[in-house]
């Protein structure tokens, strides 16, 4: 490791390096503590939270808050726990991620390898749609979902997430395919390969990393969405984030902090799991896509 440090372009003295390590560790604590404390307090009896110290380990360990959050806690009017809403979020997120990613891939392919007049304008329109404040579409969307008879359902939310996820998925694939050598596409064309064959045989097989990046991004965004869920799917079709908020901010009864924390960790679970398994694709995606080197 000392060898590696000496090979570094920017040379730093030993004392500076100690300072850097200290600062990095302090920041690591800043990021870790809130979640860590939440975990500790989710396995404490409520009395230890209200009368004790938040960073003390539990005197008595219990998994009751987790069981309660999962299957018996009062969400709105029903004592169902978060389980049905967890299922809602899965049923919503998986198809929405798959559809928006598939459309993004083919869009990115077209916008880079089959450029036509107006393609840049179309891409610009798609790109801008990533950044609009969604407040601007809430009112008409509520009406259109009503007309389509999918207001307040998971299907409605899938449609919403596909539509507003298209911009980003197209952006990812467009930037990725822009770096893909045109010569390969041209060579395949000369060999007689058509539009779809080139996509299936040449583009897709080399798209593994960007597929991972796009799926992770879409899944995180869709799972974590609150605004659309709260606007279009309250009640029994609500996604996880909305029901967690209902659980935490319900004004009736005793505030069961330990149950809230268990619920919050359950809501964070899937995205956190994806992040732990495939987090490097986040950074790789940032390097490949959104930042120009």
């Amino acid at each position, binding site marked *: 490791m000392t060898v*590696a*440090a000496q090979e570094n*372009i920017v*040379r730093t003295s030993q004392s500076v390096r100690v300072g*850097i*390590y200290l*600062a*990095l560790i302090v*920041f*690591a604590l800043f*990021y870790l503590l*809130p*979640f860590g*404390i939440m975990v500790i307090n989710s396995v404490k009896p409520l009395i230890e939270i*209200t009368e004790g*110290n*938040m*960073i003390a380990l539990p005197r008595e360990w219990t998994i009751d808050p987790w069981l309660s959050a999962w299957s018996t806690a009062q969400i709105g009017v029903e004592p169902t726990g978060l389980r049905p809403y967890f299922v809602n979020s899965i049923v919503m997120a998986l198809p929405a991620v798959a559809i928006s990613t598939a459309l993004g891939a*083919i*869009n990115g392919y*077209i916008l880079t390898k*089959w450029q*036509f007049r107006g393609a840049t304008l*179309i891409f*610009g329109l798609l790109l*801008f749609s990533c*950044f*609009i*404040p*969604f*407040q*601007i*579409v*809430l*009112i*008409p*969307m509520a009406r259109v979902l009503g007309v389509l008879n999918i207001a307040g359902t998971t299907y409605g939310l899938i449609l919403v997430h596909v*539509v*507003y996820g*298209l911009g980003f998925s197209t952006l990812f694939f467009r930037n990725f395919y822009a770096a893909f050598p045109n010569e390969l596409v041209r060579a395949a064309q000369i060999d007689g390969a058509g*539009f779809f064959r080139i996509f299936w045989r040449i583009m897709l097989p080399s798209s593994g990393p960007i597929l991972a990046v796009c799926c992770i991004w879409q899944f995180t965004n869709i799972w974590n969405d*609150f605004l659309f869920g709260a606007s279009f799917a309250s009640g029994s079709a609500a996604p996880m*984030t909305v029901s967690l*908020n209902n659980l*935490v901010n319900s004004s009736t009864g005793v505030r069961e902090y330990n149950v*809230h*924390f268990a*619920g*919050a960790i359950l809501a*964070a679970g899937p*995205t*956190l799991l994806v*992040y*732990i398994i495939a*987090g490097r694709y*986040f*950074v790789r995606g940032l390097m490949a896509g*959104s*930042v120009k*080197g």
Partner: protein
Amino acid sequence: MSMNLTTTDQDLKTRLQNWLPKIVLAPSFGLVVFFVYGFIAFTLYLSFTNSRMLPSYEWVGWQNYERLFQIREWDIALNNLVIFAILYISICTVIGLILAVFLDQKIRGEGVLRPIFLYPMALSFIVTGTAWKWFLDPAIGIENTFHLWGWQSFSFDWIKDRDMAIYAIVIAAVWQSSGFVMAMFLAGLRGIDDELLKAAQIDGASNFNLYRRIILPQLRPAFLSAFVILGHLAIKSYDLVIALTGGGPGNATALPATFMYSYSFTRNQMGIGSASAVIMLLTISAIMVPYLYAELNEKKR
């Protein structure tokens, strides 16, 4: 993409091949035109009508906008947005840059540290809000902990204080997003050509000058991206406020996004709600349109 093909059969095939991309792109294009631009047009139209609980089509001109800017809560929301955006963007950028530069010094354990800095961005703002709401609550969170440790005079009750609550929201927002900015800067740093740095070092540049004169200027695109992304996130901020304070105490932490929601859907002032959404869109457009335009043109070159 044109090729010299002789027979008419191949000619037809080529023409079909030329149309195919447009046909395949059409559904996505249609969805975006309808659900994004059509909807924007509809909301824009509503903002000039006297819509209340339901959309109405009675034209009232600029009345909603005039009334909007007389509403005290909107005034508070705009002020809060300015405070929130400035602090959120600048603190995230500073922390992100420091972390990225430090991590770029061939740090042992970078593989452990980087994911730790970054993981909050995988969480929902509702989860972040649930955690921070409790820390910031003086009766049970950080203040209480210090009291139990014997520091009785310690006070940290921003979230309950009308004047300070918006700063409490900044803390939670920075916790969530600064790692993301770190990742952007780190990607930028890793993209810098080592040869350039070596040359500067042979010329005797100090570390400080190396950063100030060569490395930071090369990070300009990353700075710009960070600014644009954080800026638009700030304007869109909704979930975190709902989870942390619900816009309170009173309406002390109202932001344009919470204002729009409450006026459109709970106070039955859809016309005014639409007007506020249009203002939000215009603000974001002022940041995004020049940025995206420059991006697209640069990539064409």
